């Protein structure tokens, strides 16, 4: 049993104090200590993207970030994408375009795709594939995921 520290961060808009072990990754802190279970673990070594979160707006693999490092930061997970009862256009597009099968990779893809569209509102197919190459999906073959991101980009462009 290792040392405990309190980390104060904003998680999906809510100021939160989490008691963590100094050995905890951000992924462990979110899942095991803060009960934020939409963040998924697929590998715990930065290879699958299932644990993707936005850290102060930047896309990171939360399994590669130490929990202690996020003191004072803003963390966004899949739970923070929807606004009240409105799904984010990416979530809506993933549903309509059948961009998920088992759904375990979906939270990571949604967060990664949000980071992409925040930076580049109308990415090409190649740009989408390049950006999402850090997120593995074993069910879909990516075709419907790429289309859903294109679809959401169009929706965001016409509504903004």
């Amino acid at each position, binding site marked *: *049993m290792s040392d405990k520290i309190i980390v104060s961060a904003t998680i999906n808009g809510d100021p939160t104090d989490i008691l963590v*072990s100094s*050995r905890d990754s951000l992924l*462990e802190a979110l*899942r*095991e200590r803060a*009960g934020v*279970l*939409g*963040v*998924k*673990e*697929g*590998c*715990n*070594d*930065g*290879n*699958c993207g*299932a644990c993707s979160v936005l850290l102060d707006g930047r896309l990171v693999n939360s399994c590669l970030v130490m929990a202690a490092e996020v003191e004072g930061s803003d963390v966004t*997970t*899949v*739970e923070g*994408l*929807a606004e009240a009862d409105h*799904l984010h256009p990416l*979530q809506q597009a*993933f*549903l*309509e*375009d*059948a961009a*998920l*099968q*088992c*759904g*375990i*990779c*979906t*939270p990571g893809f*949604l967060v990664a795709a949000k980071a992409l569209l925040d930076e580049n509102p109308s990415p090409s*197919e190649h740009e*989408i*594939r*390049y950006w*999402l*190459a*850090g*997120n*593995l*999906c*074993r*069910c*879909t*073959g*990516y*075709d*419907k*995921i*790429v289309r859903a991101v294109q679809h959401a980009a169009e929706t965001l462009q016409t509504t903004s």
Partner: protein
Amino acid sequence: MVTTEKPKYKVVGTRPIRPDGVEKVNGRAEYGADVSLPGLLPGAVLRSPHAHARILSIDTSKAEAMAGVRAVVTSADFPPREGDGPQARDNVLAHDKVLYVGHAVAAVAAVDLHTAEDAVELIEVQYEVLPHVMDVRDAMLDGAPILDATLRTGEPDGSKGDSATNVAQHIHYEKGDLAAGFAEADIVIEREYETTMAHQGYIEPQNGTALWGPDDQIRIWTSTQGLFAVRDTVAGMLGLPVKSVKVEPVEIGGGFGGKIPTYLPPVAALLSRKSGKPVKLTMSRKEVLEATGPTSGTYMRVKMGAKKDGTLTAMEAWLAFEAGGYPGSPVGAATMCVFAPYACANQVIDGYDVLVNKPQTAAYRAPGAPASEYAAECLIDEIAEALDRDPLELRLQNSVKEGDSRADGFTYGPVGHVECLQEAQESPHYQSELSGENRGRGVASGFWFNIGFETSMAAQIQSDGTVPLVMGAVDIGGSRASAAMQFAETLGIASEDIKPHIVDTDSVGFTFLTGGSRTAFANGWAAYECAMDMRRQMEERAATIWDCDRESVRYDDDGVIRGPAAAAGAPQEFTFKELAAELPNTGGGIVGRADVSKTTHGPAFATHIVDVEVDAETGKVEVLRYTAIQDVGTAIHPSYVEGQMQGGAAQGIGMALNEEYIWDDKGRMVNSSLLDYRMPTALDLPMLDTIIVEVPNPGHPYGVRGVGEVPIIPPAPALHAAIYNAIGERMRTLPMSPRRILERTLPDDE
């Protein structure tokens, strides 16, 4: 989409949003690893560092004494053994021998995961290291290290061999006269093929949580393809009646066959009994790769003869499949599938299930077929080349049709291989020109059985006309949606009014696992019969309300219940919702139920087309264009059918071009991370075009065949042909990785 005399459906064939979708896009869906319970203890597993060793002793005292440790278990915590020889539970916790690196030996539950992981390191195991054998051919030789001294080969006639061996089973099928078939042939070609061990690669690692109560009632939460299979396995290994075990439903993050076996739940249960607390075990990615079942590596020899006119006259296959540490490779299915797409009259097929010091193999999408059909399809491509025939045309000429039979004796009903090949010929992809250096196009077909088996469902009507529908089949990729749609179609109502739920093993009848492409098929049958049961009961209720003869009431396919004209002459009818609202005051609710076990499953065929460019410098194969064509019987939800075809193709492409287990000389996997195992990313693939062919299965109310498995089969042989057409090299070992391609293309002196 190709359609042959398609009936008009209102729900089947549409693309509604899946009922479990919202929870999956907002992060609320509960997967196995998300289970949390008061007092939950995490745990960790100690695994073998040796590929083959005898366990001399296990000393857990230091781990037990560590602060924060709540329980330590080994195989000694299982009930007494029955009989000699290995048992299924030996793969869950090793008994006297470890048979592969990663074999579980002991486990710890502690107050937190770091403590459990540290405690595992304190367990002292003494091993006597034994020689190991990794290659299927080596394992079959006289004098090979023997994994199980009690094993004798099961022969095709049911007899047993008389000496110690690693060959667990020999399978043999034949039809016609092979020698006469080869004598008739104008050309005969024989080739050897190899495939390497490959993993299902589901993104969610295995997990298992157990709570063993003081009353010996055990609750289990685990990501599995079969809730009832877990119940029966856990009860069996712990020597308890099935009534002691209840398996709760959770979402599953992919399986592809790899989540059929049960690894962690019995261990978590033993830890829970010792600690008195619920215990959760989850695997690391390294554990997933080293200790959960991949598919077999293989060595295969295939020989074919053909006449100048293209008729295949003789086909012979010799297939040796790695089983892993215990018997059970998918060689049985491989032997039945190897020549399944072709109507050749003379065939001999031999298959061998062989123990090696690798992880115990498990099912992986069309288990066995991607290897054996790869070998056969590659050789068909060579025959086509030798006869100067278009490879699709040669396949069409020899394709099975209704009434043809396989060497194992199965005779086909209506099947759609011919239709797939014709669609492929007419597809925009095959009609297009491909030019450029180091570019090539390839085609190949695939066959898979699909299966039926037991499925239960029950439904009740709520007063607002919505219908909760409970089922026992795990939903791994949209089966709740397809069940709800077939149920709604039968009742003539909207699929949005159906609320499908997967429930625990005490709350629904026995349901076989999700696998074998059976779920849309068998759930569909159950949904149909459950809805028909409901229709009958609603007719009875309407007859009571109208005070008329039961026979004069009809539930029509449009969802309207019609009775005889009332005294005044006005027709009497209820919509589904109107009658639903009457139920509470006219005798109470209605429960529909169905228990089906159908054997009318429909075989599925697929044909794929691929264009590649091979990078001469690096040996990397880039997939330029891909089209998957498949007979699905009927597409219930076309988006998810396409998704299965695309996902299967992507896995097939990964298996063909990159994925493999790489071992060191001690039998250790050296690439046990996702980065090094290297599954396809979004950047490695193009859009995957699909053409759905619908030749309805006459043995299903909506014509469903099953979709999930066959699309993993054609990619490897299609890529083999495409690479050959690009660079003139026939790659007969999978994966056709950059290294293997460069070994063939670089001049020897480089």
